[in-house]
């Protein structure tokens, strides 16, 4: 396929030469403000340098980390922010980004790790702006190859070279070692937790694992937050 990028160490291609895919995917309007806030909290830090590569993961499966990652990428890539954002799916066993974003599954991370080639991902043209999506790749790939840090680092470096931010969707920390492998290679980790579902112990465990892998835990994202007390009552209390 001509969408495959040629392996060239120098100079890296300034922009991905991939055939753009048109997608109707967008952020649910009701959630936009919340995601915007999250974006701001993570990437506009007055104290220290804003992280460029961020892993979005959950302590346990089904925390909604993939959606949060996708939503963050969409916000960052939106016309309002205008960042060049790459969304990378490192959930090699149960990839979801491709189907979520409506792009082909391949070429993807798995291919890149297996072959050692650098890939540029798929350029997705959105309603407001564009986004690079690197799906997980063909499912018959080698799962063990995912943990080759050197190739991972190269891939991330490659993507960072022509993107402002790389957002990595990773499998849950407590079930999979991927995050531990990636943590040190990125600027930070965002832990997504579902209110009233994720156990505190699981979160503590995830935090411990991330810190052991020398990753930086940027913060916690509270997903599927509920306000059990009705608003009118809550405001009076």
């Amino acid at each position, binding site marked *: 396929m001509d969408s495959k990028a040629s392996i060239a160490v120098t100079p890296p291609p300034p922009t991905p030469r991939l055939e753009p895919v048109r997608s109707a995917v967008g952020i649910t309007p009701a959630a936009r403000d919340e995601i915007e806030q999250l974006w701001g909290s993570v990437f506009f830090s007055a104290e220290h340098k804003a992280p460029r590569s961020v892993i979005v993961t959950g302590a346990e499966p089904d925390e909604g980390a993939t959606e949060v990652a996708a939503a963050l990428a969409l916000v960052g890539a939106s016309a309002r922010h205008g960042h060049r954002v790459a969304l990378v799916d490192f959930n090699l066993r149960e990839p979801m980004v491709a189907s979520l974003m409506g792009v082909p599954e391949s070429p993807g991370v798995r291919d890149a790790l297996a072959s050692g080639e650098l890939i540029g991902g798929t350029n997705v043209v959105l309603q407001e702006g564009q986004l690079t999506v690197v799906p997980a790749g063909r499912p018959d790939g080698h799962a063990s190859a995912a943990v080759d840090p050197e190739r991972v680092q190269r891939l991330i470096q490659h993507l960072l070279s022509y993107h402002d931010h790389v957002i990595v969707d990773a499998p849950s920390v407590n079930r999979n070692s991927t995050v531990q492998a990636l943590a040190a290679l990125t600027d930070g980790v965002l832990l997504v*937790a579902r209110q009233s579902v994720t156990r505190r112990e699981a979160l503590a465990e995830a935090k411990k694992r991330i810190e052991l892998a020398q990753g930086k835990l940027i913060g916690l994202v509270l997903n599927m937050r509920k306000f059990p007390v009705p608003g009118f009552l809550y405001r009076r209390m």
Partner: protein
Amino acid sequence: MPENRSRSLRELSRVLFARWLMVLFIIAAVTGATLAACLKAPKSYRSSVTFLAKEPRPQNPTAQQVSTDRSLEVFIKTQNELITSQTVLARTLAVLRNPESAVAKEWMEAREAVEQFDKDRSSNRDSARDKDREAILARFTASLAALDREVDRLMKEAADYREDLRQFAKKVKVKTPGGEQIALSEIFTITVTMPGPPERAWQAADLLARNYVDRYRQLQAESGGKSAEFMRTRLDAFKRERLARAEAALRDFVENELESPSDVGILEQLSKSGTEAGRQIVVRRFQEELIDIDAQLASAVQLKRELLEQLPEVLWGKDPRTGPDGELTVPRMENLSEEALPDTHPALIEAVTIIPEDTIQNNVVVNQLKGKEVALLIELNRLQVEFAEQYRAVRDKQMEIARTRRQILRELVAEASARDIAASILRARQNEIKTRLDQETRRLDRTTSLLVRYQELQNELAVAREEYRRLSADLASAEQFQNQEADAITISIVDPARVPDADRPAFPNTILFTVIAGGVGVLLAFAYAFMADHFDHTFRTIGEAEHYLGVPVVGSIGRHRSGLVT
């Protein structure tokens, strides 16, 4: 701190609202289940009878306030026990089980007759109908006895009857408006709660009230009759033993100890006036008589001596003039004969001239003779003037005077003799009285020694009579009481039993139970909510997460039905 308070309030409401579905479900489930159970449960109905206990109070009630209160309390407690007694409950249940049985019908009719009779009689008293009343009462008593036999039979044969009786005892309650302080009121209420149709509760309450009143009357009549019977027996025994014995003892004493029954008079006299005074009264009577006799005797002797001293010596003739005791003796009449004392004897003149004045006054014959002599002397003097001594008329007169003088002398001797006899009679009388006085004194002494014993016996008899009188009065009052008791209904029904409202069963009280179940449901639901929250290990709030992990929460995303990305 308002912030803390509001935070904790928010916390509390969060806990509840976080599981509102389950909370509502629990409340609804508990309430609904109770409601369903209430609607489906077999219903019991309650019927009650209110009584007024009118205590018989013959005295002024305010005079014995304390004891009355106390006795009213005891009375009502007793009624309580009576109502829940086995006999009353068993009779009631026997009738309730089979109201159409012959025994039950007979009882109902018999008591109906009694009540009807009493009602008639209270409006129109007629003592002639007491015989009728006795017959009606006898029938009623017999019906009760038949009912008791039926109860005995059921107790022996019907196991379910025994079980029913146990259950029935639990369904009967006696209440007083004052609660524990039952002496405050004379009202008390029997309440019967029965499963089944409302009519059954009414029937049970009504029958129980009737049976209670019957039992009360029965007991009252029995106790009244017994007390009168007891009093009668006691009175008979007392009469037989104490009274008769006291009387017999007194009779024995009078018959055996006293010499004559007339001594009782002395004893009475003595017990009335005391020993010493009584003795003096008796002795004085004799002494007065003796003194009187002494006086008479002295005058008789004196008169005799005076007479005899005047009489001429010739009258004694050859007899000695004085007796062996120195007293002058009465001359014999022979010495006054014409031969012994001729008319011409000078002694005739001598004696007559000095007749004692008393004798002339007292002795009519002497008086007349003296008068005659004087008249003759006057006549003689006249004759002597006219005639010579030898003149016959003069001599006749002289003869007549001499005869009269002899007669006077005879009379004087007779008088002296009479005095002598009177004196001897008086002496004899004196002796007799002295003897009697001695006798009386001796008798008095002896009787006095018996007086103590007599008084004892007399006293004992008096006490026994008094006691007998008192017992008789008691018996009379007991009999009166019995009559009164048999008549007086001191328990009267204020409110008869009513058929309870079918919509308002005593159990279950649907509204109350449902409300309570609602409350319990709320409590259970709250308990569930807080317990679930306590054991929930997930994190619920941003603050909790930050506190627990030490990591900032950089964002929170709400729940969006269509997901974050579309």
